[in-house]
């Protein structure tokens, strides 16, 4: 493959104006997933669950592959797999160390199962590949409304438990002493996380879920610690990555996930740079008392 073939496959904007309206549903789906990923990502970072997200995604993949094999609904399969995995993690490991070893055990098992189901599957190869690398371009309007409804449930759930979950994530000991049901909140959060992972797999695939659920929040945390700004930036970064990724991918002939992951990676690198400058300029400088009261 020479350079012009490569660039033609990656970036191709011929007939872009005609193409764009056809992908309206995909763009909307991307925006919804960005919103969910950006919101839940801040808690994933706070609770140190990046590895858990990866583990959940592999089991979600196994569930989807099984559904594909037996002819059931793939999205349902992926939902079942990830919610099951998330709740399992929520019940089993309370401490990070314990949790990480449980994930390390579960993850290859899930991936192995998924590969087994896929190799038994006789249908289209594109379906197989899509589970791992994403297939948002095929979203139709029924799927879109299902997606939007599920996303609305996740967001409503998150908003409901927002403050106690923040408390329990930042300082579980004090939160428990203050009567906050730390363990119940943790399970509720894992449930919402499981759903979010299953949704995200539809766009970026099981292997790249972290680009939606971790990278945007991690990037936001590089530049600010103000809770509202973290959430806003994280959501903005996630939406820019998904919607931007789909728009760049429209004309090309490769899946959208490389675009999404590259965009979110670039945003992260940029934020790291900004954060480094901010720290060097004195992020931690104490303001004189008069100024603090002003």
């Amino acid at each position, binding site marked *: 493959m020479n350079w012009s073939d490569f660039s033609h496959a990656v970036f191709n904007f011929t007939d872009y104006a005609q193409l764009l309206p056809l992908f309206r549903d995909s763009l909307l789906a991307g925006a919804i997933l960005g919103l969910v990923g950006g919101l839940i990502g*801040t808690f994933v*970072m*706070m609770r*140190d669950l990046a590895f858990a997200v990866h583990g959940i995604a592999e089991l979600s993949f196994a569930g989807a592959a099984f559904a594909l094999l037996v002819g059931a609904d793939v999205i349902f399969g992926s939902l079942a797999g990830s919610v099951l995995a998330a709740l399992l993690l929520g019940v089993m490991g*309370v*401490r990070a160390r314990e949790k990480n070893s449980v994930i390390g055990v579960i993850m290859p098992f899930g991936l192995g199962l998924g590969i087994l189901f896929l190799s038994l599957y006789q249908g289209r190869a594109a379906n197989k590949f899509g589970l791992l690398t994403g297939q948002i371009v095929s979203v139709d309007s029924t799927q879109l409304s299902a997606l939007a409804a599920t996303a609305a449930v996740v967001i409503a759930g998150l*908003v*409901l*438990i*927002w*403050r*106690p979950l*923040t*408390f329990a994530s*930042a*300082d*579980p*000991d*004090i*939160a*428990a*002493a*203050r*009567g*906050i049901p*730390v*363990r119940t909140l943790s399970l509720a959060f894992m449930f919402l996380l499981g759903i979010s992972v299953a949704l995200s797999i539809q766009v970026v695939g099981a292997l790249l879920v972290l680009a939606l659920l971790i990278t945007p929040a*991690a990037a*936001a*945390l*590089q530049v*600010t*610690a*103000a*809770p509202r700004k*973290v959430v806003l930036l994280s959501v903005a970064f996630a939406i820019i990555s998904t919607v931007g990724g789909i728009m760049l991918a429209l004309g090309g002939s490769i899946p959208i996930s490389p675009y999404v992951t590259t965009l979110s990676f670039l945003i992260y690198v940029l934020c790291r740079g900004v954060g480094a400058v901010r720290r060097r300029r004195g*992020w*931690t400088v*104490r*303001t*004189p*008392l008069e100024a*603090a*009261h002003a």
Partner: protein
Amino acid sequence: MSATSTPPGVAVASAPAVSLRGASLAYGPRTLWDGLDLDIAPGEFLAVLGANGSGKTSFLKVLLGLVPLGAGTLAIDGEPARRGSRAIGYVPQQKHFPPDTPLRARDLVGLGVDGHKWGIRLRGRAYRKRVDALLAEVGAASYAKIPVGMLSGGEQQRLRIAQALAPNPKVLLCDEPLLSLDLHHQRAVSALVGRQAKRNGTAVVFVTHEINPILEHVDRVLYLAGGRFTIGTPGEVMTTEVLSRLYGTHVEVLHSHGRIAVVGMPDRVLDGHPEELPGVELQGQP
């Protein structure tokens, strides 16, 4: 061993902030303490001392309503102890926040104001005012907007105290809050807690293994050892006779330049150690 239940120099007229009657706590065959009668008055500073495993942390857990008493009664501000009581503020050991924690100093304090409520905060005005007042109270206004992960241990402890004071508690429970702080911060944090007791009338229960940094603020000491306890002013309790009797072996209490040293204390008074109680996730050990 009997206990004096009226603190010195505190008006008896005011209702006690904490009242224990015939209280005992045991894990299986091991009794941590038994027959404990204790009233803590508003504004009183009680230090809880004792070796590792003597039941200091369990004492706090009982007050927090996380562990039920084996026998006897406990009232906090006249009410039975319960989990999550607004009458209690809790300041734990210093524990570092990861540098990328998405909270600034003021947000950490704010968790004490409305972190227990469901949903998201819709009206911020009263909240902001309260947080500003609490920050000023503990002298943390100058770093209000700095991320918690970038603050020193002493600064974080000040914020935890501000957070604990948010609901205007009657009792401030401190569990080794000076641990891993340098001398300067130890002094500043204990002065802050002492002032809270004297000026605002909050009863303080201060669990520590080292009395010296808080000595000037302490009204009474509850000393736990080997299933026994003794209560009194530091001058009454911190003597060679009393502690030797308590430990059942000779220990030497030395006073020098306003500091107290206990020498010859048995390493472990008990055969076992209640590292963690089953079913309780507080103060998890690494």
